[in-house]
């Protein structure tokens, strides 16, 4: 057997192991359907909307917050213009007269955490949340999240389910499927008490959390991930409100997507270094024993597989070109296509790849059901055709940046 293929088999085994593990987790405790019950008490909530150059989308974000089914005297919105240069502050003035809305302007400090901490300092509610200024909440999202806090007083943070807002191009459709897959993952990580990130779009925290563990940190521009790591380090509970739906805008170009994901991936690697003591440490439960090690190993193996595939395709292409010039045989289509089973590829690799793809489809289908979302053929096709091509770009970039200690900033 090709020695290089052993690494590919290891990657497939790991991917399959994680999918099997999560599917067992799903069958152990299936996510409950949305109930009509309302919270017994409505705690005060401040939603921080940090924004940097979000003039185009800020209005829609704030309007979606104001339209939520939540007592107006219990909900305040804190817009923090983080040094925008595109008229974001002026756009925010539209809400200046609304008693629920407070608008602040501050100097940009190079990362989002400072805007969040600014907002926490300028609010006094029982719960504090964040909503990125390019995301939009459904009307009952906050109620669904508050119910989670009410269920367990030991819950210190709640993450929602995220969907892609109105996908238009292939890259957005690809991310729509990926986010739906993510809904399944997040819920299963919740079952395992191992949620690894509290995303910017509408994660809500008890204010007392910040007294226990401190405020947000720069954390390699992934303050939302670092906060989740820190909470696990302190044994504090994070849950997922899968019925709380948030729609978010996603990058529409490959360049923007790679930049965003490089930041996320680099953040994972750097936070992994900072919290390396949690790896394979039973004290941190499934987070330390499964999610972190599988995440890091998956990162490395994905890069290996991408490199291996690149090498294989490159070798094939080079051979084809050299043969073309050496033999003088013109490029031609095969004279016949054998569809008889004898000629089919029936290697072990084929069957295990089919198994992984099958389980991935099952996971996406479960994610769709959890979040009551419908994905079209375009979403599935673009995900399976594109994701494997673009993901190695940000993984390689993040690995390079981490090794060379290259600082890129928030969005570069």
């Amino acid at each position: 057997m090709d020695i290089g293929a052993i690494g590919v088999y290891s990657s497939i085994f790991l991917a399959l192991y994680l999918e099997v593990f999560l599917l067992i987790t799903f069958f152990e405790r299936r996510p409950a359907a949305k109930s009509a019950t309302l919270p017994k008490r409505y705690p005060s909530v401040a939603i921080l909307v940090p924004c940097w150059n979000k003039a185009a989308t800020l209005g829609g974000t704030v309007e979606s917050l104001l339209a939520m089914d939540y007592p107006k005297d219990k909900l305040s919105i804190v817009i923090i213009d983080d040094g925008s240069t595109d008229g974001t502050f002026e756009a925010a003035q539209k809400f200046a007269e609304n008693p629920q809305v407070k608008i602040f302007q501050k100097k940009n400090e190079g990362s989002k955490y400072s805007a969040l901490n600014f907002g926490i300092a300028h609010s006094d509610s029982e719960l504090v949340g964040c909503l990125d200024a390019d995301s939009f909440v459904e009307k009952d999202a906050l109620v669904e999240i508050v119910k989670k806090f009410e269920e367990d007083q030991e819950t210190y943070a709640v993450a929602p389910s995220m969907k892609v807002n109105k996908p238009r191009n292939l890259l957005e459709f690809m991310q729509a499927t990926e986010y739906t897959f993510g809904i399944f993952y997040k819920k299963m990580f919740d079952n395992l008490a191992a949620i690894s990130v509290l995303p910017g779009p509408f994660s809500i925290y008890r204010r007392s959390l910040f007294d226990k563990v401190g405020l947000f940190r720069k954390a390699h521009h992934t303050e939302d991930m670092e906060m989740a790591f820190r909470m696990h380090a302190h044994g504090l509970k994070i849950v997922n409100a899968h019925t709380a739906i948030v729609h978010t805008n996603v990058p529409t170009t490959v360049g923007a997507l790679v930049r965003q994901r490089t930041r996320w991936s680099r953040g994972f690697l750097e936070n992994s270094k900072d919290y390396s003591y949690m790896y394979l440490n039973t004290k941190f439960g499934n987070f330390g024993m499964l999610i972190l090690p599988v995440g890091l190993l998956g990162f490395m193996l994905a890069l290996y597989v991408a490199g291996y595939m690149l090498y294989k395709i490159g070798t094939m292409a080079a051979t084809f070109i050299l043969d073309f010039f050496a033999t003088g045989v013109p490029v031609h289509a095969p004279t016949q296509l054998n569809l008889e089973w004898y000629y089919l590829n029936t290697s072990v690799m084929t069957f295990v790849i089919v198994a992984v793809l099958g389980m991935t489809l099952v996971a996406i289908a479960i994610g769709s059901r959890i979040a009551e979302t419908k994905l079209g053929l375009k979403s599935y096709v673009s995900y399976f055709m594109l994701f494997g091509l673009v993901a190695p770009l940000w993984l390689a970039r993040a690995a390079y940046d981490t090794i060379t200690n290259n600082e890129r900033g928030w969005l570069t």
Partner: protein
Amino acid sequence: MQWQKYILAFIITAAIFGTAFYITSRLDQARIADIRATQEAVSIDILSTETQFDLLGSLSCEVVSQNPVLSDELNSLASRLAVAEQNLGSTNEAVVSLKKQYSLLEIKDYLLMQELSQKCKSLKPAYILYFYSNTGDCEDCDRQGQVLTYLRQTYPGLRVYAFDYHLELAALTTLERLHKIDAQKGLPAIVINNRAPVYGFKTLQDMEKLMPELKSLSTSTPPTSDSI
């Protein structure tokens, strides 16, 4: 920690891999059975060739020219053999056995064509004996194979007989001796229409120069290098 779940997930994953290995192994066994069936078919074909030869020997040249001898069987066998070699390895016992049978069939077909061309002067056979090696001593054999495959596809009347030089088969050794094939001079070696062997890689253009007979053969695809 739910260690049982970690172990259960591992067992299920290993079982999926095990199932994949099992299915692949069963399919490989089915391929071997298919090869054995093909071997039997080859045996019948060899006998058929001999009988056909006896029959055609007494028939008119007109009938001969219309009779497709064994080219279809040869091509089908060649492609099955290539897949079997790729999946099961060139040293697999069944593969080697099939290869020997295949080589015998080729030699039989070649001899038949020789006899026919002597009997029927109107028949102008165009054939190539191609001696290759896949034991690492012939860097250009893959490329030579591409050139000859293309020629065979382009000129359906051209018969290309490919032989593994190192195959331990008495009849093949005799054929090599008859045509004075010497691997020391460098494989691949090519014999065109019974002429002296030529050694080393030959491009499509070289082959067209070496084999002017090609011009008189009908083509199934647009002609080769001249029209590129």
